[in-house]
């Protein structure tokens, strides 16, 4: 039997002060990101903010400062440029606020055709989104997330206790905020795909938390005499090898996707990667200690056994 961990007996709950401090910082970061996003001050993808993005693939290498210069000369200032080195790809983004004209994508293509006649290129993708659509997407995504959280709290509360439901939801919120905050600090663009990644990690983190809670529930029924802190610690230790093996496998999937999945999948996989790590951390160090902050009588769970 190959084992990464033998039987462990780590006092996870005893370290909750440190973990709460760390989590507190991450949550504050995440909240700042949320506020900045709602103020429109964050690096929102054009699918949310509205605007134009054109990705061109050139035959020969192109210098980014030259590209910026010719765009400015042709009345397309404030373009954000990003290059994908080896393949001579250039991503040009223009937010709606910088230009209100129509057909921006066509203009960008025309400018490059005119200014770089020798360097042939193809349009890999172009996206133009009116601001109204972006707002609707934001709203829809928010409603969907809120409703799913409400549903999860209700379900977990029904299967366990209310405090379990709230703790699981809070831990999941914590994970989403932590990754969002990290993306904000790294000034990564927050696109619809990143939001999908956040939802995915919410699903993953919720699963992880429920697995731990499940063991806590089981132990609460079996060992009534122990203190809740001991019971929780034991439960986490018991599922620890499962937690590590699962997280490791998912990380194994995500590393190649992040490194070699192409530019479209890169940010997505990166968000998930961060999410899996923080999600594993949070089920042990956030969700479980939260139960201790709100000591229930556990009457209902005990009665059932």
């Amino acid at each position, binding site marked *: 039997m190959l084992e990464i961990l033998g039987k462990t007996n780590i006092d996870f709950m005893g370290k909750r002060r440190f973990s709460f401090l760390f989590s507190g910082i991450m949550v504050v970061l995440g909240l700042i990101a949320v506020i900045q996003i709602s103020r429109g001050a964050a690096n929102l993808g054009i699918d949310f903010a509205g605007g134009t993005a054109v990705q061109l693939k050139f035959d020969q290498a192109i210098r980014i400062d030259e590209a910026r210069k010719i765009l400015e000369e042709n009345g397309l200032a404030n373009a954000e440029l990003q290059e994908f080195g080896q393949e001579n790809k250039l991503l040009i983004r223009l937010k709606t606020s910088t230009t209100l004209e129509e057909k921006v994508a066509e203009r960008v293509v025309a400018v490059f055709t005119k200014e770089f006649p020798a360097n042939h290129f193809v349009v890999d993708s172009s996206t133009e989104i009116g601001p109204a659509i972006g707002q609707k997407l934001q709203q829809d995504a928010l409603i969907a997330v809120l409703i799913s959280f409400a*549903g999860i709290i209700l379900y977990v509360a029904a299967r366990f206790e209310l405090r379990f439901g709230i703790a699981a939801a809070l831990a999941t919120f914590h994970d989403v905020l932590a990754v969002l905050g990290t993306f904000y600090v790294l000034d990564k663009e927050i696109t619809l795909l990143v939001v999908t990644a956040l939802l995915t990690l919410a699903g993953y983190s919720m*699963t992880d938390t429920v697995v731990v809670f499940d063991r806590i529930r089981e132990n609460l029924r079996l060992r009534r005499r122990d203190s809740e802190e001991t019971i929780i610690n034991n439960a986490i230790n018991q599922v620890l090898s499962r937690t590590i093996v699962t997280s490791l496998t998912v990380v194994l999937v995500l590393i190649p996707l992040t490194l070699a999945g192409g530019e479209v999948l890169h940010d997505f996989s990166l968000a998930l990667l961060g999410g899996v790590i923080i999600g594993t951390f949070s089920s042990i160090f956030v969700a479980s200690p939260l139960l201790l902050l709100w000591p229930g009588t556990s009457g209902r769970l005990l009665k059932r056994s």
Partner: protein
Amino acid sequence: MKKVGGRLTLLVLVVVVSVIFFVPSYQPFYQALPDWLKKVMPSKGVTLGLDLQGGIHLVMEVDEDRAVEIAVDRSVVALQDLLVDKKIPVESITRTGPTQVTIQFQNAELKAQIQKMIDDFPTFSETESAGSANRLVWELREAEVKRIKDSAINQALETIRNRIDQFGVAEPMVQRQGLKQIVVQLPGVKEPKRAKDLIKETALLEFKMLDEDNQLKLDLPARIPKDKEAEILKQAEAKLPIGDQILFERAVEKDTGREYRIPYLVKKRVMLTGDVLSDARVSIGQFNDPYVSITFDAKGGREFERITGDNVKKRMAVVLDNTIYSAPVIQERITGGRAQITGTFSTQEANDLAIVLRAGALPAPLKIIQDLTVGPSLGKDSIEKGVQATLFAGAMVVVFMIVYYRMSGVIADFALVLNLVCLIGALSALNATLTLPGIAGIVLTIGMGVDSNVLIFERIREELRLGKAVRLAVDGGYDKALLTIVDSHVTTLITGVALFLFGTGPIKGFAVTLCLGIGINLFTALIGTKVIFDLLNQRHKVEQLSI
């Protein structure tokens, strides 16, 4: 341990059905199948989203207000014609608001006479507020405004469908979304710009007479550089005769290829519109220059014959979307209901012009509010890279499971592969579309699949450590993991359903694969692998479990 028979049959059935639906998604394998098998099997694999195979996704809004304005403008011209026919002199007839027409006249005695003419325009009503002796104000009725707006979007939908059908795109989607939006999806389009132009062009074809007498007085330049149209319009504005307008012809210098414009003074009155066309085809002229030959329907043909007969030796402009294509002199009465549209265009442009003419005009301009275009190369790139990375990642997981759980790992790997095949099969069977966020859903599902197996195996190990016999340990492991697995899957399913019901577009794609994946996962983890364990136990009386 329960009887294996029923569950084994179910497992085999699921595997067979999934494989049948999965195979068409993997073309190399599908193509290798014998023909008789292809005939009975479903032929359609999973549909790839635009982000994966390239294509266009457009959300457009019909400019309804403009549709109303256009209708009012037409009535203005019709009223003008009628007044000219009845020889009633008026100073001006203008549209003074979105739905308002103001008629100014000097002779106050004419008021009653003009007032009566509203009978010919039943969609208008006279407004009380305009109590001047020299002025009448008509307003388009509320009901008519609503009708025009309603029909505008339906007509636009119909027209766009026609055009796309003729353009030739595999599996296009044209749908109404909400009250006034139209969604168009064209997967795998090779020339996105051309397709977009084709959809967006209003394509209103009109035949109008030039006002040659007055053009001389107006002293218009013979040709102007392009982009200078606005200046010319401004200069001439004050001197413009009533019922006339200036339109431009697009022309190209033969030697330099430089574009320029020729201004013409044109009578606003529309002699004939593209409504009366029955066909439009591209032909090649004697100098290898393409032109579009149009055929009128019976009514249009008679009308065209009458108009040309009345206007011999005069010039008639062929106007498309307010640009003159040509302004030939009518040599004689044209019978037979045919005409030509010549101008400076390439064969492809002529081709597209013929398509839009055949498909009919849009009732109003379209405003594109969302435009996602993915070139075929990027789509291919992202698929190739994504698939490669996913395969590699999958291989790592498979190897890891075998290293860590040995023989049991092989069983878990079987469950993973079954998961994937079922999921893709289910997506094909449901005719769902696989997008990048959908792949994200698959990744999460695989993660959960691994997790279920890990949960069960760790539990079995615990039971084995307690010294239980293999069979009891397996049963115990599954029993104890059952609740955990159900709970974790249901919570994720709640998220999935909420996202499916309330999310839009890409988020919905994610939700679909997630929900399907969770259901399939529950089956493979709780029934699929268990049957295999039970089968092994039954056949071989396993003493040592390789886990």
